[in-house]
């Protein structure tokens, strides 16, 4: 189980806890993540708006470097990076015209031989849910989690082929291996406002309010996410949402890798649980999941 690992810029900065928990969980499960040598920015959402070829050349550059690790699959945690790499591979495999342009821009021959997988797919499909359940030492059966997928993971369906784009269930299955209960709620793939968080914060506040409202209506105690941008919008903006719409949301927003880490008995400092705005520590102590 050897994968080239593409952390992406946010996992090295604002959402370091996602990187820490992902690495901890993987090493504990025996999944070897070798960081792709001198990977570059994946271009995220702004790149394909400015220059199409650039938005695909950047991920291809990293995919070519990933070949040096000897693994034939690149593991990705961040939803935006996952989407960009997957789309680049799709164009290289299916559109000879674009492939020629990309190869010319990158200056090397790349035919889409490196596959791209999200950590969720690796855990659920390659590693297998049963083995995952076996690895869980502490049962979190008191915890009620709402799994939030966001939009980049599941769409566009033809290219991502990740899960059912209306009602995805892969994260629910992974989280349920820890014994926690996941709630069925309609906000799984609602938009969180993404990068409007900086330019039009009002929009993000309104959208996050809806999501948090739907989650709490469904009886969830915390939200599991797989994308740093969704996490920051829901977590960072939660106090402002409370202020603007005089709500009393106190909903911790955790990465699914952190939840897995807790269930595997990893110390919460190693999982970066102290880096959240809405601190989950009090809540987890209440549930005596952590001391």
């Amino acid at each position, binding site marked *: 189980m050897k994968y080239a690992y593409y952390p992406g810029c946010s996992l090295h900065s604002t959402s370091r806890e996602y990187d820490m928990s992902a690495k901890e969980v993987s090493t504990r499960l025996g999944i070897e993540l070798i960081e792709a040598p001198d990977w570059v920015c994946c271009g995220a959402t702004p790149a394909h708006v400015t220059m199409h070829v650039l938005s695909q050349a950047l991920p291809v550059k990293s995919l070519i470097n990933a070949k040096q690790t000897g693994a034939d699959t690149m593991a990705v945690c961040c939803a935006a990076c996952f989407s960009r790499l997957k789309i680049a591979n799709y164009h290289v495999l299916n559109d000879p015209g674009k492939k020629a342009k990309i190869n010319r821009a990158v200056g090397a021959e790349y035919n889409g031989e490196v596959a791209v997988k999200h950590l969720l797919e690796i855990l659920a499909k390659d590693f297998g849910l049963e083995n995952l359940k076996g690895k869980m030492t502490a049962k979190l059966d008191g915890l009620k989690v709402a799994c939030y997928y966001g939009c980049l993971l599941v769409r566009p369906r033809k290219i991502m082929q990740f899960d059912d784009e209306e009602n995805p269930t892969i994260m629910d299955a992974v989280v349920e291996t820890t014994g926690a209960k996941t709630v069925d709620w309609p906000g799984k793939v*609602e938009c969180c406002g993404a990068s409007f968080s900086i330019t039009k914060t009002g929009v993000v506040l309104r959208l996050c309010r809806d999501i948090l*409202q739907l989650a709490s209506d469904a009886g969830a105690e915390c939200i599991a996410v797989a994308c740093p941008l969704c996490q920051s919008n829901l977590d960072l903006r939660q106090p402002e949402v409370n202020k603007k719409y005089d709500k009393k949301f106190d909903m911790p927003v955790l990465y699914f890798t952190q939840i897995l880490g807790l269930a595997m008995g990893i110390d919460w400092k190693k999982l970066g649980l102290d880096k959240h705005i809405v601190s989950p520590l009090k809540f987890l102590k209440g549930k005596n999941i952590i001391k």
Partner: protein
Amino acid sequence: MKIGVFVCHCGTNISAVIDVQKVVNDLAKMPGVFAMDYKFMCSDPGQNMIISEIKQKKLDAVIVAACSPCLHELTFRNTLIRGGLNPYMLEIANIREQDSWVHTDRDKATEKAVRLAKMAVAKAKRNQPLFPQEVSVEKSCLVIGGGIAGIQAAIDISSAGYQTVIVEKEPSIGGKMAMFDKTFPTLDCSACILTPKMVQASQSKKVKIYTYSEVEEIGGYVGNFNARIRVKARSVNMEKCTGCGICWQKCPVKVNSEFEQNLGPRKAVYVPFAQAVPNVPVIDCVNCTYYRSKRQNPESKGLCRICEKFCPAGAIEFDQKDKIIEEKFGAVIVATGFSAFDHKVYGEYGAGRYKDVVTALQFERLLNSSGPTQGKILRPSDSKEARTIVFVQCVGSRDESKGVPYCSRVCCMYTAKQALLLKEHIPDANAYVFYIDIRAAGKNYEEFIERVQDEYGVLYLRGRVSKIYRTGDGALLVRGADTLSGTQVEISADMVVLATGLVSNPETVKLGQMIGIPYDKNRFFTESHPKLAPAETQTAGVFICGACQFPKDIPDSVAQAGAAASKVLGLFSQEHLMLEPVLACVNQKICNGCFHCRAVCPYNAIDEEILKDKSVVARVIESKCHGCGNCISACPVSAVDLKGYTNEQILEQLQSLR
């Protein structure tokens, strides 16, 4: 042999691309061929010109180089008859659909036209006069499907005095129309206008109705179809039962009723709806405790049998078996109707997880006074009254990604009607309709829509619904766009009605292959010509009407049913039927009696005959042969030949291309 070649300009359809004059000159060079051209060969002056040429030049065969034979082969055959020639001395070169319309290069198209005409001449040289074969006509018609279309066709045919048989899959005729509450645009109650028709059909001496039965096999050809119908066991004796209803009152088993679209219960012994014709119940073997216990251990006496005890007429017969009926028919009308689109494929509308997201048919049952809620509009989840209802149009229509690219034509109208009825039931309820385009193209349809919007205040929002989900308080949040005002719209509704489209009946493919009629990629039966023959199919003697040909509303179905009936009556009015003389015939001097031909004949139209010298040879049964030519390719010594398409003719056609 004197051959006349008549090249048509077809206005400019042909002459625009093909140099007709050059074709005429090239053809005239051939020995024994007279060629000329005319602007509209199929027009009356054109045909009269052909007739005069035949008489003047004493032609033996006629070649018409014009449009496709599928269009005007019949017209020109009649022209030959009027000109005194045998109609089968005609050959048609298709230089329009397969030449001028599909090619641009002028001289290549002209060269092809010359080749096609020369090929037709080569075939015509070896044409023999053929005389259609007379065959008796069985004066009775089989109608498959007992919906409004089937019933109307049966009534029209029986009123002309001919025997008709309706075969209906469900326990009662009436089809989907029986489920409706009111009909648009006149709002007269669906049952009130349907029940008299059903009664008229059941009481007519000329109409025999087999309900709860299916057609298993249809063989034969126009005028002489033979069908095998399986009447499934109802476990109730039709003669004895008076329809008093005690049995289904007493029956302890409650099951979801398909007729009520799973909104209301029915018993194991049931009649689908009150005005069912025949008003005789059916025992549902799957759920009836007696039959279930019999299946567990067949020897036991079986449990329950309450209905048998209480039946005053003693009509319950548990050991009733399926009956197979073989009958001969002269014509077949297929009226198998439509089925509603399964909306569960739409994840964004909840994929069937929310009880309060109902289909239009379910809402129709809610509106119906004889429905599960006796006409009160209650939410299926908590049966509270629904005061805000959102109607979503084009669910399973005009949606390429869901494989339903066509518009189902009727949803806009029935949604408007349902919205109107909702406002009549609950005047202060508010109804929203999300639509793309309102299609109201019938008589008084547009006015009906205007009335619904102005008089009843139904709010029409032009845009698609992007998501429906249940909010905490149990209401349904419908999020959509209103493109006219350019804003996003969110409505918290009590109930959402999806205007599901009309798709084809699942058995279309099986039925189509059984009868031998084609169907298109949406699995609707293909009519013989979209504009000129919508009620006929390519197979002679088989007609189609109603939604099985394409989604249509009740007026169109009834009209098409009348059309199909009139075609059948046209068929029955002839004493004998002229059968295509294109049949196989065996040259018994050469036949070795190896019977490869019988082995491949799909209609086993070949049997043995013993000649004087005691050798056994093959013989073609003229009435059974359809003229497909399978036996000719199978015969090693080509002792068989097909009149009209003989081996010699086809070889000559190939040689003419040298």
